[in-house]
């Protein structure tokens, strides 16, 4: 069988593989059943390389590259797993936990949290850097949903789903570096947003307890972002 027109051939973890034109390393790796950890990536949304968990080694590149936003090139040699990468990913997870106030035991997302389960998957047992314990606020002004900045990891899934799928672009990010935070409209209380349609997509795609439905604590099921690929496919077919 011949390769599809324009297909790229490359080597991933020592195995010859192929990718469609424009396909990312992450997407190609998953097609070949190779695990690369992610948090900001979500099937059905555009990628931004925010969380840095999917960093991989590419031969000839001077730095590590995010697999979610790097496209496969002809002849590329990619390593997705090495002691160095494992160290980087562990440190990235630890920094995410130390940056804001993540208290799993009393979190609405406990046991249903992508960040928590990713930390477990990566074998994170300690946070070796000091916690920052920043004083952050909770915005509970929306009728149905709450935003807790304490638990936000700035993955921007909410920003992307609101803009790309719902088309409202209520969410955005303001500030720089450690001051960055997600905002609704012009940094106003969520409940006063004129663009928010209250569709709840942002809540369903949020990987942590930062966005959640009010009065939904202690439930045995988590969030469900599975609507996303369906919506995307249906719209593409229109």
């Amino acid at each position: 069988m011949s390769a599809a027109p324009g297909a790229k051939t490359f080597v991933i973890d020592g195995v010859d593989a192929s990718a469609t034109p424009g396909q990312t390393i992450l997407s190609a790796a998953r097609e070949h059943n190779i695990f690369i950890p992610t948090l900001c990536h979500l099937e059905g949304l555009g990628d931004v390389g925010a969380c840095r968990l999917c960093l991989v080694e590419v031969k000839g590149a001077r730095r590590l590259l995010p697999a979610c936003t790097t496209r496969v090139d002809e002849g590329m040699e990619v390593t997705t797993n090495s002691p160095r990468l494992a160290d980087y990913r562990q440190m990235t997870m630890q920094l995410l936990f130390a940056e804001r106030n993540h208290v799993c035991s009393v979190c609405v997302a406990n046991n249903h949290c992508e960040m928590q389960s990713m930390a477990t998957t990566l074998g994170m047992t300690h946070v070796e850097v000091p916690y920052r314990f920043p004083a952050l606020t909770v915005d509970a002004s929306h009728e149905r949903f709450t935003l807790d900045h304490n638990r936000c990891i700035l993955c921007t899934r909410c920003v992307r789903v609101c803009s790309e799928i719902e088309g409202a672009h209520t969410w955005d990010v303001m500030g720089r570096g450690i001051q960055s935070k997600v905002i609704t409209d012009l940094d106003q209380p969520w409940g006063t947003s004129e663009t928010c349609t209250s569709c709840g997509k942002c809540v369903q795609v949020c990987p942590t307890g930062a966005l959640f439905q009010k009065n939904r604590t202690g439930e045995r099921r988590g969030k469900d972002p599975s609507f996303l690929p369906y919506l995307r496919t249906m719209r593409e077919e229109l």
Partner: protein
Amino acid sequence: MPKTITIAPVTRLEGHAKITLQLDDAGVVQEAYFHITQVRGFEKFCEGRPYYEMPGIMARICGICPVSHLIASAKACDALLAVRIPPAAANLRRIFNLAQLVQSHALSFFYLSAPDLLLGMDSDPAMRHILGVAQTAPETALDGVHLRQFGQTVIEILGGQRIHPGWVVPGGVNEPLSLEKRDKILAMIPEARAKVQRTLTWFKAATENFHAEIEVFANFPTLFLGLADDEGKAEYYDGHLRLSDSAGNMVASSLDPKAYASYIEEKVEPFTYLKFPYYKPLGYPGGVYRVGPLARLNLAERCGTPLADVEWRAFRAMSNGPVLSSFYYHQARLVEMLHATEKIEQLLLDPEILDKHVRATARVNSNEGVGVAEAPRGTLMHHYQVNDDGLITHANLIIATGHNNAAMNRGVLQTARHFVRGDQVTEGMLNRVEAVIRTYDPCLSCSTHAVGQMPLQVELRAPDGALVRSLRRD
């Protein structure tokens, strides 16, 4: 020369404490202080959190009684929503609360106090623990383990996990009871009940050996406070607060729990982090009251289940009025465990318990909510204020052990006066001073909402404050 004895840490308690006994020149105990040496700050750090996280946060006050805090907290949140929760949800919470009562009472009686009761107050401290009980009376130790297991298993079946279950939520519970789960609980009840009955028979016979302790273990008049239903039956989940005096006269027969702040005041003393609540109209110390198993059985006109009612009558027959010696907290605990096994069965046999409608939903409709329930150790009060978005602006908790604080201090003094003389202090004497506190089964880390070092320490101090002798156990 006047002296001070320190017992620190006080052992076989949930939490950390220290006792100071002040002796005069003749070596007689003049004053006794029961210090709770920790503070945690739950009331403060929950400010700014959404109200519906409160049950989960407040349950973390205690790993032994998370269910009690869950329930009082969820009731306070029900009040914020201003909803009446579905009857099945209320009864499921009742069962949950009674299962908690059984496992906690079993811990207190078998693990913490049975070593004193079975092996003796003067027995070798190296063996005076649950393993010593297991060697001397394996059946008793096993009954204790099994009764704890019974309570914890019921909690696990209903709530999904034994410690910090998330099943109780504002507005009700988040999952109805299935037929299979109901039958599983029902099947466990007869064995648990038989074990409680066996223990009661043993305990009542054993009280013969403790006349001196019964006489001076916090045996004094106080008021009693606890919940009761409209018919005067003991109530653990809802109902009105009752307050009786030491002669059994009702001081107040139908206090609204939600208005607790209008009749309960908390006094602060410099030597302890734990405050001293009292009944406001009678002032301090006249308004000092006791809560918990002894108070509940003293206040109730009956338990409302056949076997427990027989035991309740026998219990009350020991005294003309209320039973005043805190030593009898132990017996009251066993009667309550018996009642709990009966009541859980009654509630489960009502077909309504399987109703699928177990949660009322609403947004915040009231900026203030109070939730009061009976925890194993006594009346537990959660009081929250929220802003219009439902974020906590103020929280006040009065924990069962707090209500008993003044009585515990007086009990320590009474017991120490009787047993402690001069500086020839034996370990057995000091153990009795600890044992009087154990009758209340205080949960010190809960009551101060506190964290810190807490082994028991007893200090004997001279009138000038100089430390004469200090005993410490870690």
